[in-house]
């Protein structure tokens, strides 16, 4: 036993090279750490009031109830007492463009929307900017992982999962090219533009557009069955994984008729993994979704109902409706102000709890549920033995802005610097004004 502390320690045994500017990635974990006495929200729907969590070599090697197990502090290099604090698996920002957009209004900083209709071969990961000024402000609130996702076109491209503590995108990779993103045609076509929408009309070419997608999938399927040596087609090749089940098809779709068509589409092509993204109407077809093994990345909880007569809290309670129907789902933060707003992902889960989820279901909705949909639940998404040590400690309830205060966070066992340029700027001006 080298160093045992019962009070919170911030930087014990860890050192940061703190540059003015970007936060440097943490040092590789060598020694073992025991997080003791914290209220652990495991992400699995379970919680342990007084927990003992052991991290070693970047992994969680033990998760125990501190009340029912004998804990010998001297077994660990570092012991951090987090009594009265909460510990959570790293929150996951699914369907995110973090690192692909720095400043909304400046086109030069946008890298998520490639030109063209079918771009399955386009890969978000190589554009992912580990040095974004935004990311450090996100992880400050416990969001430690993201699915970096392309947008636009009909097939937008391939997404990858990253963590937020890396020198470059290769370091950041958790899982590469996991999903293909499809924007399903709209049954109702809106006229006007975003600020002054006109009336929607039934789209005349909905059928045409869906047929076009079918054609592309026919081609892709045919290609995937043949050996195409010497005759490689980049687009069709990128689609292969969908048929084998290596990749997940994420379909952006909202209206119930479209959702029904997507379900039929999945069956037609015998696609193994299909996820609905958005799904405003998904609560109306939960039985079909379950039967067909389709998960839902629920649209931004903090959004307005589509119709004046819709329940005013419909977007708030959508997670609860899916949860109760047994449809696998998770939450996301795709909306206006999405990149910088992602730090509010935990509070979106908070709202879902206020509107029906249990607390642990709320935690799961941005941790293990998302990890399952991304296919990374074998290594991430919960505080379980054998998983990566990507987790954090908050002084208070991390899903409530009133109490959220993340004090320690680990990514793969590396303790990360929770500082960011915003808090530095704050301190700079506090000093200027002589405020304490």
């Amino acid at each position: 036993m080298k160093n045992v502390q019962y009070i919170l320690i911030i930087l014990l045994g860890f050192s940061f090279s703190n540059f003015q500017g970007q936060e440097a990635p943490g040092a590789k974990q060598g020694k073992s750490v025991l997080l003791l006495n914290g209220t652990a929200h495991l992400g699995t729907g379970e919680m342990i009031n007084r927990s003992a969590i052991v991290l070693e070599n970047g992994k969680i090697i033990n998760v125990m109830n501190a009340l029912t197990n004998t804990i010998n502090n001297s077994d660990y290099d570092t012991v951090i007492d987090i009594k009265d604090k909460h510990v959570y698996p790293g929150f996951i920002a699914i369907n995110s463009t973090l690192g692909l957009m720095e400043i909304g209004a400046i086109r030069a900083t946008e890298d998520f929307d490639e030109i063209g209709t079918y771009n399955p071969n386009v890969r978000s990961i190589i554009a992912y900017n580990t040095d974004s000024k935004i990311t450090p402000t996100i992880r400050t609130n416990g969001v430690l992982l993201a699915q970096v996702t392309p947008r636009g076109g009909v097939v937008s491209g391939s997404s990858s999962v990253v963590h937020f503590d890396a020198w470059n995108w290769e370091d950041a990779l958790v899982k590469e090219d996991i999903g293909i993103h499809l924007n399903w045609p709209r049954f109702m076509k809106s006229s006007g533009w975003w600020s002054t929408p006109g009336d929607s009309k039934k789209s005349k070419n909905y059928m045409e557009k869906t047929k076009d997608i079918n054609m592309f999938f026919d081609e892709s399927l045919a290609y995937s069955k043949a050996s195409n040596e010497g005759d490689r087609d980049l687009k069709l090749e990128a689609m292969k994984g969908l048929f084998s089940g290596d990749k997940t098809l994420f379909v952006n779709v909202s209206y119930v008729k479209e959702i029904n068509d997507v379900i039929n589409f999945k069956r037609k092509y015998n696609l193994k993994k299909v996820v609905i993204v958005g799904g405003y109407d998904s609560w109306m077809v939960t039985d079909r979704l379950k039967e067909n093994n389709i998960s839902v990345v629920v649209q931004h909880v903090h959004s307005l109902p589509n119709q004046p007569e819709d329940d005013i809290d419909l977007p708030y309670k959508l997670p609860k409706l899916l949860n109760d129907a047994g449809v696998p789902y998770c939450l996301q933060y795709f909306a206006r102000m999405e990149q910088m707003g992602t730090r509010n992902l935990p509070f979106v889960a908070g709202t879902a709890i206020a509107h029906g989820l249990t607390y642990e279901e709320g935690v799961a909705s941005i941790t293990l549920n998302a990890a399952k949909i991304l296919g990374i639940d074998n290594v991430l998404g919960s505080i379980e033995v054998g998983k990566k040590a990507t987790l954090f400690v908050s002084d208070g309830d991390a899903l409530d802005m009133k109490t959220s205060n993340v004090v320690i966070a680990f990514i793969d066992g590396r303790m990360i610097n929770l500082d960011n340029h915003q808090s530095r700027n704050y301190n700079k001006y506090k000093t200027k004004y002589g405020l304490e």
Partner: protein
Amino acid sequence: MKNYLFLSFIFFSIIGFSQEDFPINGVRDKNHNSHAFINATLHIDADAVINDGYLFVKEGRITYVGPKTKLPKSCVVHDVNGKHIYPSFIDLYSSYGIEKAEASPRNDYPQYNSLKKGAYSWNQAIKPEVNGIDTFKDNEKLAKEYRNNGFGTVLSHQQDGIARGTSVLANLASNSQHENIILEKGAAHYSFKKGVSRQAYPSSLMGCIALLKQTFLDAEWYQNTLEEKQKNLSLEAFTATQTLPQIFEVRNKYSVLRADKIGDAFNVQYIFKGSGDEYQMVADMKATNGKFIVPLNFPKPYDVEDPYDARHVSLEEMKHWELAPSNPKFLEQNQIVFALTTDGLKKKSSFLMNLRKAVKMGLSKKQALKSLTQIPAEMMGVYKELGSLTIGKQANFLITSGDIFEKGESIHQNWIRGKKHEVSAMDLVDIRGVYNLNVNQNIRTLVVSGSKAKPSGKLTYDMITDSISAKGDLVLDSLTGKPYKVIRKKSVKVVTSLNDHTIAISYQLNGGVYRLSGNVNFDSGVWDGRGQMPNGEWIEWTAIRSERHKKKKNLDKALEFAKSIDKEFQAITDSVNLGKFNYPMMAYGWDSLPTQKSILIKNATVWTLEEQGTLETDLLIREGKIAHIGKIADIVDVNTLVIDAKGKHVSPGIIDEHSHIAIERGVNEGSSAVTAEVRIGDVVKPNDINIYRQLSGGVTASQLLHGSANPIGGQAALIKLRWGNSPEQMKVENAPGFIKFALGENVKQSNWGSYNTIRFPQTRMGVEQVFYDAFINAQEYEKKWSVYNALAKKKKQEVSAPRRDLQTEAILEILNAQRFVTCHSYVQSEINMLMHVADSMKFRLNTFTHILEGYKVADKMKAHGAGGSTFSDWWAYKFEVNDAIPHNASLLNQMGIVTAINSDDAEMGRRLNQEAAKGIKYGGMTEEEALKMVTLNPAILLHVDERMGSIKIGKDADIVIWSDNPLSVYAKVEQTIIDGIVYYDWKRDLKMRKEIQQERLRIITKMIEEKNGGAETQKAVKKKSTVHVCGTLSDDGN
């Protein structure tokens, strides 16, 4: 609300009935015959009917109307026994015969100046100089459509622009170009639509309103000024046309009130051309004292068979579908004077059908006739000439088969200025029946059925054929051994066409065509004529009727037919089954407006945000005010609503300093760098569902701000979310005036694409100069006026008053501390700049809104005395917000600056408590400090903290009951109370959700019934819904 003067000098004398000055080709027409219509039911006007009456017409005018009398000599007699005669209808809202306005050429760059050549208004939407008469040309095709629906006269104008010029009142007689014109300038017309003008200003409804008001002032100044002035034909025409009836076209009920307010300000009583939704606010309509011209463009039922698609039809649309046909009835019941128009109907031919629908719904026939004849004639001051069957009036009348307001009756003739126009044949022979048709000695039976006007025939005959068994074998006669013969009834279709008393018949038989032509004799008892056989041979033919058309049977059929297309009537006439009125008329509207009550909230955690702090106690509300804070044992008033709030929290109502909800047609008048003249208060939209949604988030008051598209934007409006009330009732009484300023990327149009690059300013450097220029101009304006005002009364008559300028007056109010500034701002340089401008102009900037770099200049803001209203944690959405920090509010607060947190977003607006709570997380505010960010502090910034923003005895009872600590993400609003009235209650909300579904189902059932009954429908599509943010740009000038 003053009545305008009708023109007392209408030049009827110039209406010659023949063109005396025209050369004559041939001999002179000296036909001075009279026409006598005898034995008719004469509808003299809405009140007087003469049975078996006589009507004489001579040279285009009525010469007699009354009971049977001696016929004039030299007279054509029309025996119209059984028919009805009505005055022809008058439609005051038409563009008949008028050329369309031509649009300026398209250009990618915005057009800031008028492209209209000539000495006209600076703005292309102001065109009172346009006179309909100048381009008026008869249009026989359209005239016929009007005539066929009963109209004899229209008031027609070029329907384009805000001040549209004058209309021409004209008859619709065919080929009577010169005779038709009754009034060269009938009325002056206005609207809130800029029309085809592509000039940038106005780009919003509030801009249209401001432009019209300024035009009034300019016209007055132009007329009165004695100094040398530039020619302005538009202003001259504007003044000159004020003596005419003033007709204002509006798009909805709220705009009736808007137009009326302008009218009140300038002593004009408008006639409102409404949109058909007046019934929804009929008391307010009545209070304008205005007369109305209303359309009968009732919505078609929607396609709602598909339960998914049906969701796109809002309850508001459904209710309007159901209630719109009752609009005329409600106007009548409320004694509002109104005329009816065909305007808005896709097909003029649906006019009578819709008129009858309105009558079925309860509009009296008297009123219907009056609204189509006397009232429009009176509105135009021509009742001496038109609008009733009165001796001396123009002979404009309809002959109908019966009561025109009853289904099935038709218009036979429409006489205009004594000229006959046939609409449907009056004495059509009924050829229906059964005939023995003898063609070339072959007699066959011909059955003619169908309608009287479009009969169709069928020829039946026997055919003798071989009998064939089921197996297909020939059946043989057992006696003869020959094939057994059977008689089969055969029939062929006969094409008949009846033309007066001649008939043509053709049919195909045995592979050849028979074609017959002949005469109809003896009331269709006998037909005869000649025809051609398939072989080309000519033969004689006859048809003798053996049976008359079976009326009874057909009556049943007719009934059945009527029933089928009448299902819509049946459904609608069941007026018991009409849904409730809601306020507003949409989902979550009230059945009746909630009322003020004494409310006792017991055992709550009360966040007073005053010195008392947060207490576990009771709270008494009386007469809309906080009456008592502290334990109350006995309730005095038995009507007190007692709410047990044990475990609940009570906070002051949330006040959103920066909101863009509840605004109609445009949040920005961004078409010019300075638009201080426009006012959000003119365009409050009380039926925005976001009002209700925000109530459910505890918001009780919102400052509705102009957008940030220009350095000096429009004036703001402070409303309380009194859901269900009218625009004026929403506004906070005597709230201090505010105006929106803006700085940075939005005002220099940085993110508006490649073409918005020509308006000054394009840099922050230019922005400063816009302010100096505006303020210095305002100072000079004030000086000019104070010099003038100081003059002695007599002196004043010798010089002219300076021109009044609404824009400058608003800016001057800022300098005189009568109006406060809330300025959209981000980076420190421009914030400092504006404080310098204000310091040197000696006024104080009240609020910097957004103020994301406020933390950098907090000391200077403090010194200047400005407050801040900021986002909790937004940044990175554009370059100028890249240095924003979420600790901003907290730091400003620590510096002693009055700080608020605002939404600028309709969704976030209902979670402002959560946004405030972030102040605890970023920068360590106390909970009370955080809650003040969205309650007391915005009240202070808005200068309403005397009555709002905290829980203090005597303050307005604007409070929220929460399920939990209001700063927690888990807190839900249970009740929102404004002025002691419960405007939101979560239990009522749950109840209403069910009611909304039931009401929808009820109407959906009706719609489907109508559709099955044969009614035309429209597709179920989602209607436009606008959510504004600060930078929302659009051209809403139409």
